[in-house]
């Protein structure tokens, strides 16, 4: 082995990645060449300095509990929305019973599994026709496994934002893209954005670059994910 080859192999030797035969040749050369020995010593010094510094990376106090707490808060927000939606629907249902609208009441007898209901915010002022439509949505929603990630059919599923989520100035769409998907289209506030997958990946992050506060809509074309309404930070 000459000095040139030796120097090319220093990194592999340092990292324990040389085959036994090469390692032997490397070590034989080491015994005979002072300059190469010095090169290796320098490289070893850098390696151990790096390892020492990296060992000093700090840990965060109560990290696990902070993460789990944030997840719980997120769940709580969802469940609060469920509770509000269910309460509104039940109170409307009671209203309908009193006005003898049993047909609609039957449809909302079991709103237990409702995870969210679009447009429930202003239900009180809706016409009977609109309430009926919303109730049908609830029913439709109940029939499905309610999830932002449809299991079987979805090739591209939306992970974030979900209905009612608030994004900040760095807000981005997070998608789960199944292997094999090459192209798909996002509709952000009705504007088409064609995307091409450069390599297979399970999660894809796409910056939204939305500046205006307030509600925005997002749909994925040819996907099971329904339109979601999210908000840019600053709402209310």
């Amino acid at each position, binding site marked *: 082995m000459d000095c040139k080859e030796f120097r090319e192999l220093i990194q592999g030797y340092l*990292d324990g990645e040389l085959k036994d035969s090469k390692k032997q040749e490397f070590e034989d050369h080491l015994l005979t060449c002072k300059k190469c020995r010095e090169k290796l010593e320098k490289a070893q010094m*850098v390696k151990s300095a790096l*390892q020492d510094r990296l060992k000093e990376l700090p840990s965060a106090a109560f990290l696990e509990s902070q993460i789990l707490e*944030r997840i719980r808060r997120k769940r709580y927000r969802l469940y609060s929305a469920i509770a509000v939606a269910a309460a509104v629907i039940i109170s409307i249902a009671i209203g309908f019973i009193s006005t003898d609208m049993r047909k609609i009441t039957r449809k909302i007898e079991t709103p237990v599994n409702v995870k969210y209901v679009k447009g429930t915010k202003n239900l009180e002022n809706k016409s009977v026709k609109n309430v009926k439509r919303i109730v049908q949505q609830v029913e439709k929603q109940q029939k499905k496994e309610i999830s932002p990630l449809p299991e079987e059919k979805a090739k591209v599923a939306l992970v974030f934002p979900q209905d009612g989520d608030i994004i900040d100035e760095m807000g981005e769409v997070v998608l789960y893209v199944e292997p094999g998907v090459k192209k798909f289209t996002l509709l952000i506030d009705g504007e088409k954005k064609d995307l091409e997958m450069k390599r297979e990946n*399970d*999660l894809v992050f796409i910056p939204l670059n939305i500046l205006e506060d307030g509600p925005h809509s997002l749909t994925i074309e040819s996907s099971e994910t329904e339109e979601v309404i999210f908000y840019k930070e600053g709402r209310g």
Partner: protein
Amino acid sequence: MFQQRSRRGESPPPFEEVVRMYSDRIFKLAFYFVQDYYDALDITQDVFLLAYKNYRKFRFESDPYTWLYRIAINRINRIRQKEARIKKVELSDNIEGGENPLDIVEKEDKINRLNKIIDSLPDVYKDVIFLKYYEGLNYKKISNLLSIPIGTVRSRLARARKSIEKMMEVGNGL
């Protein structure tokens, strides 16, 4: 451990177990890149929140760390891009312009010198340094994780090491 469970056909472990096993490693990764405790904490929380939302989709055929690492690197890059934009604005106000990394090294005391040197390296070098010298992964695993050839892993490590050697020479050693 997770992959073995998957092979045995068992259901995935509770998400809390994933948090317990990987949160410290992801925090350290984030801190290594952003060098700020609270930013690293935010990134770590974001990573696990996203992972939680997507947990049912994860099939445990690969190492969960690979999955979490990729989410984390995406978050880190977003933060760093934002910071870079801010720095650019700051620099345009300063006629002196930026400093040469070697000049920065000269000014720092010995304890912080290597941290500063690592920080001044391009991200592609920092990636491999972390995975090799903190995580202790072999070239094959790093190659899978970063989707780059094994030869590229080696050459990036070698170039990173040589750059560090050069900068340390300027600073008269460690």
